[in-house]
């Protein structure tokens, strides 16, 4: 049986498993006998990746089938401060798993697109998960926080998703909310307005933001920054999702 290495982002953990990504996604989000349940986001990690911070080989040696012949579902290699030790180069496919266990694998974009104008909403996924608004596009946002140790705040690594703002991106005062499902939308508006009226580039909207987020709110994709490196994993268009990944899209669109 193959052995896989997965970087879970909800919560941060490095896990070895004999399950394929789809099987692992279903197992990880639903759990055996429906005991635990929730959204999951994880990367498959290059099997050759090694870092002295992680006892990878020891964990892999424990990742063997059960006596019944069933595959080992999970061996936790590390928890806490995992993301900061995984470089962009070690990342394989990103998997987005719905609450009911449907798994979608997405590839890394060849390059990160240039920043678009307007205001942005970032849901940080790992290591922490505050909700942040910013006047900076993803590239600028990455540069602002990472890879410059002389700055007041230098984040070693960060994974985040840019969420849709709809009309609020250009008109926070009067834009129509439409299908934006965010809680306390008035507070979100006021934070966005402050980006325009005050001399700040980022603002925390919710420091106690829940870990999970609605996949349908993804603006363009998920970003992973580590040091000066930045990778983007673009979500396919709704048309592509409906056509090629309909079951996943139905569950994700709940």
């Amino acid at each position: 049986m193959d052995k896989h290495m997965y970087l879970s982002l909800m919560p941060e953990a490095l896990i070895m498993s004999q399950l394929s990504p789809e099987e692992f996604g279903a197992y990880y989000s639903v759990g055996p006998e429906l005991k635990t349940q929730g959204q999951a986001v994880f990367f498959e990690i290059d099997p050759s990746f090694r870092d002295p911070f992680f006892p990878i080989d020891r964990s892999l040696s424990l990742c063997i089938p059960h006596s019944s012949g069933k595959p080992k579902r999970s061996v936790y290699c590390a928890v806490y401060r995992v993301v900061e030790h995984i470089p962009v180069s070690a990342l394989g496919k990103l998997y987005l798993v719905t609450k009911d266990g449907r798994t979608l694998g997405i590839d890394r974009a060849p390059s990160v697109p240039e920043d678009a104008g307007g205001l942005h909403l970032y849901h940080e996924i790992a290591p922490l998960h505050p909700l942040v608004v910013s006047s900076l596009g993803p590239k600028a946002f990455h540069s602002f926080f990472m890879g410059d140790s002389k700055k007041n705040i230098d984040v070693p690594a960060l994974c985040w998703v840019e969420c849709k703002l709809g009309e609020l991106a250009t008109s926070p005062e009067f834009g129509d909310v439409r299908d934006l499902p965010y809680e306390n939308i008035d507070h979100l508006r006021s934070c966005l307005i402050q980006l325009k009226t005050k001399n700040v580039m980022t603002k925390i909207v919710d420091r106690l933001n829940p870990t999970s987020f609605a996949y349908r709110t993804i603006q363009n994709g998920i970003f992973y920054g580590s040091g000066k490196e930045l990778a983007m994993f673009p979500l396919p268009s709704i048309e592509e999702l409906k056509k090629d990944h309909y079951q996943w899209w139905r569950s994700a669109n709940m």
Partner: protein
Amino acid sequence: MNTDTWLYAGLIAGALSILTAVFSYIRVLRYDSGSDRARQIAGWIRDGASTYLKLLYKTLIVVAIILGVILAIVFSGVEKQNHGLLTAGAFAFGALCSALAGWLGMKVAVEANVRTAVACNKGVASGFEVAFKAGSVMGLAMVGVAVFGMSLLFLLWHDVEIILGFSFGASSLALLAKAGGGIYTKTADIAADLVGKVEVGIPEDDPRNPAVIADNVGDNVGDVAGMGADIFDSYVAAAVASMLLGASFYASKMIGFQYVLLPLALCILGILSTFIGLPFVKVGKDGKPGRALNFSTVFSCVIFAILATAFFGVVNFFAKGDVSVGLNWGALIATVSGLLIGVIIGFTTDYFTNDEHSPVRNVAEISGSGTGLTIITGFSYGLISIAPAMAGIVAATLTSYFTAAAFGLPGIYGIGVAAVGMLSLTGIVVSNDAYGPIVDNAKGIAEMSGMPHEVVDCADTLDSAGNTAKAITKGFSISAAALTVLAMFAAYTESISAYSGTPLILNMQDPLVLSGVLLGCIIPALFSALLMLAVTKNAFTMIGEIRRQFKAEPGILAGTVLPDYTTCVAIASSGALRALAFPAALAVICPLLVGFILGPGALGGFLGGAIFTGVVFALLMSNAGGLWDNAKKYVEAGNFGGSGSEAHKAAVVGDTVGDPFKDTAGPSLNTLITVMSLVASLFAPLIARFHLF
């Protein structure tokens, strides 16, 4: 023109309608039934529906035998020869006819669902064609069986009181079918949603949900067999009440014999207008099925008005001024006023339940501020929605009464024919109504069998139109039932007066009448509560079963193992029928207890209290429930935060509360008040003579 000719015309029209229904059924079967997977899913739904129908009809046979024997014994004491046996026979025949119409409707619905899904591959118009053709089977079968049955019984015995037994049989079945179907459908719907969607996070119509087949079966048993039986019973009751009034006034020489049969003649014209209207119901180039459904109602309404006017003209032409065979134009105006107001009331319901209007949008918007406000606002709109419908019923009552009186007919007879006029569109209304669950199932089958998303989108478009048609049908059927029971109420007082020899006057200062009114007010509230508690109890059991299956077999959620659908179907079926016994007994026993103990005056008050509160409850619950449902759908369509938002969470709670309101208790109240009025009218000859006070 010999009035027996009308009866033969009734037999022919009824038979033609049934034959057309059978012919349409065969045509529906010829459509492509799709892939093996689609047929397998449709087969599960078909088997689930058959399981429920078998249980329902077994229960019905027991009820029919018990009630039939009671009727045969009790009415053997009436002076007329063989009256007991004939009433019991007519009762059994009425129940059989209602069951036959419901069975045929269900049979075609569970065959048409998969064919509609497959037809959606070719677009909205093709899907609509299959679904509506299948819906028309139910509509045509129902009016055909009703008119054939009434004509046959009258032709054989020339006694309206025998047809009253027929109506009672139809209503008894309707009560079981509607209330049972309502409990079944909401048990499955709520349980499937609460575990599937809320707990586990799987979408609607997902084959991994153990309750998904029960949910789809529920659409059929609740909205095809249940709603069909409900309208069938109002349809027959309206005709019978008017015929009873006609017979009563004919006996006192106030009107000619032709007025006894006029309601039947109007039913025949209704069948003809349905025949003419059906071929024109097609989705236009705009691709909007809702317009086609609304057009069918309005177009058939116009055709009926033209046919009725022509009929009166022809009869009067041959009558050459002889009032003993001619027809009074006042009866035509009363009929058409009932028809028009019925349609208007149907469309006012649409205002409160359609997301194009402010009530639904306001509830959707306010849901962003929490569940409490969703419930309060939806409930308030439900209360407001009573006003226009009641105003419509008042308008129909007054217009028909005073028009008839102004033309020299008994005013109360005008109310009777107004109810018949309102229900003359039953064929087309039931066709529209049965279309709803067929397309709802079609969408589910398209989802579950993995058809392309374009097909699912097409089925979704058809389904949205079905929801609006369903809301209009409910408003229409409640109003028609209200007018029918008013006529039945009048028939009861006439019957009591005739058998007791003294006119029955209901005086609110009489403590017996007042007590009757207060007791009558209790019944709709108690009946509604019992049905909704049955839903929550059964849903609780089913939720336990769904959770058990998910936990016992992880492969279900992984999609590698099929769930056990039959257990959920069995829970819904047996639970629904077990819970029916007490509410159904209330409808039959309470009027008899009040009548035989407190007397005819108290029973009159009892009926009044039950009718007025019953109509208020029915309108409130049906409209509030429909409003909450569509407010949730409006949010899900991407408004006020869309799916997953706070507004959505609150709207889902509103919808869950509204589900048993709109599909269990609300529409069942029609049947309750009709059954109670029929029991009172049927037993009036005995109550007039035997009562304690």
